[in-house]
């Protein structure tokens, strides 16, 4: 007969009140992604444009003959545009399996049987994707501003373009929100992460192709609201106070993005449930 039964003990420690489990989901998701070597490689490659731009800022600040490459507000807008390709791949790499893998393993029943609300679950997954997207957009763009100050030895450029700091933040947050919600919505529609990746690429390129066809047929550039990428560019141009690339009014593109966000939220509301009810 055992002197002391150690087989199962009651837990007498502290418990976190409900409402913070999204941080657990987010940190677990981020750690899981950082454990993948291929993904780390992608992150490193995504920072190469930052290095190139930093060299550009150094040359412009230290060699008068290189004034042709002096920074302007457009430089930062261009930088974020260039990061678009990395945003695309990181979104697919990180986001495709975020919900679809849980659907495949029936993990939603596990999550939602804990004190984790559906909104918290989505917030946790959203944070994983948003973290990496901001890591390759907002962080390097903001750092470039500081690098410019350091290399130029003056705050004259930043002082003359004070709006750049909030513009970088707002533009990257808008892009991150839209892209992450679209990807999460698509991820909730299938149990196959590969298929979700294909779907995302399809949405991205199909809407761009459709926009291109309509633009070519009508010879008007007022249809950017048809394309996810063009709408993001249009709104980004407005935020950075640079001339827009299309005739579509900014409110039209913003409305298209808002509709995309609303549709994604609706899909997530329908799909993220503890039980799938087929009627």
């Amino acid at each position, binding site marked *: 007969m055992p002197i002391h039964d150690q087989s199962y003990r009651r*837990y007498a420690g502290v418990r976190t009140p409900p409402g913070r489990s999204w941080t657990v989901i987010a940190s677990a998701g981020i750690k899981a992604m950082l454990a993948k070597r291929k993904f780390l490689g992608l992150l490193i490659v995504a920072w190469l444009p930052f290095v190139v731009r930093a060299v550009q800022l150094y040359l412009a600040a230290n060699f008068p003959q290189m004034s042709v490459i002096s920074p302007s507000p457009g430089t930062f807008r261009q930088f974020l545009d260039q990061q678009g390709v990395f945003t695309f791949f990181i979104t697919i790499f990180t986001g495709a399996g975020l919900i679809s893998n849980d659907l495949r393993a029936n993990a939603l029943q596990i999550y939602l049987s*804990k004190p984790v*609300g559906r909104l918290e679950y989505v917030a946790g997954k959203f944070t994983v994707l948003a973290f990496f997207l901001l890591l390759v957009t907002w962080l390097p763009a903001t750092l470039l501003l500081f690098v410019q100050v350091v290399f130029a030895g003056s705050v004259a450029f930043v002082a003359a373009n004070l709006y750049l700091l909030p513009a970088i933040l707002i533009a990257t947050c808008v892009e991150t929100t839209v892209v992450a919600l679209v990807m999460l919505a698509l991820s909730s529609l299938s149990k196959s992460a590969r298929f979700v990746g294909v779907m995302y690429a399809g949405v991205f390129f199909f809407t761009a192709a459709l926009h291109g066809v309509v633009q070519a047929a009508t010879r008007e550039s007022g249809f950017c609201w048809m394309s996810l990428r063009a709408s993001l560019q249009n709104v980004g141009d407005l935020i950075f106070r640079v001339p827009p690339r299309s005739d579509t009014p900014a409110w039209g593109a913003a409305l298209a993005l808002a509709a995309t966000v609303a549709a994604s939220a609706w899909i997530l509301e329908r799909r993220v449930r503890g039980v799938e009810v087929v009627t």
Partner: protein
Amino acid sequence: MTEPQPAAVITIAGLTVLYGRQRALDGVTASFPPGAVGLLGPNGAGKSTLLKTLLGFLAPRSGAMTVLGFDVATSPAEIRARLGYMPEIDAHIPGMNAVSFVAYCGELAGLPAVDAVQRAHEVLYYVGLGEARYRNVETYSTGMKQRIKLAQALVHDPDLLFLDEPTNGMDPKGREEMLDLIRDLAHRKGMNLILSSHLLPDVEYTCDHVVVLHQAKVAAQGPIAELKGPRGSVYEVRIKGDRDGFRSLLREAGFTAHPGEEDVMRVFVPGEAGAHALFELAARRGVQVRHLRPSLPSLEDVFAQAVGEE
């Protein structure tokens, strides 16, 4: 100050759940006392639906429910913080080994990270996965997956455990060990649990109370000993002659008969009628009673009577 333990861990009043036009639960009213309660019923009776509704996964059309004194409609997070759920289907967090998975579930339930890892090790040993705890859960056998589902439900030390068909797919030895674990939790560790199963022996072995669901309604509920007790007697009967005709006659007389081993049938005789009534019916039908032995009523008899099976 400790919170008062409610007289019933779950109360359900007039619960109706619809799947489209299909009534999955139809005006269910039941009370689950502390301890181990079996939720019994044939496939499709509404057992899993009831558990999922109590968890807040399904919205009821009407009715009221409380779990551990909390209203399901207004306090789902408080309930789930004190509840462990072992789903019927294979479920896990992908890409994790057992320790990471169970510790993660502990953190989700509100345990600090260090405590969650410590509890994960303890609970994995308790359910018999101590040696396999660093293996990826996706490589586990069906029996091991059942055990890991129990572990994730236990890691945060819930006050109430929902076990949905916990022995599904397990070999006889594994099933026996799982039932021993459940019995240990309920009777030695003082944990309240609801065991949903269509396997009568599982419920009879582990539970003290039972709620029988049949066709989306409660067919019977109460302590198993009481349900098996004084409302009638059970006989093992073997006859020679028109078996079907005799069973029809038994049915008409309000008796319940269902097949036992070989050609012996178990007949439930309600009230005080006793064996005499059986002989009378046999004589009326013209069949010979070759074997008649009083038997102890089992949960199977209660179930058969409740759902009207033969």
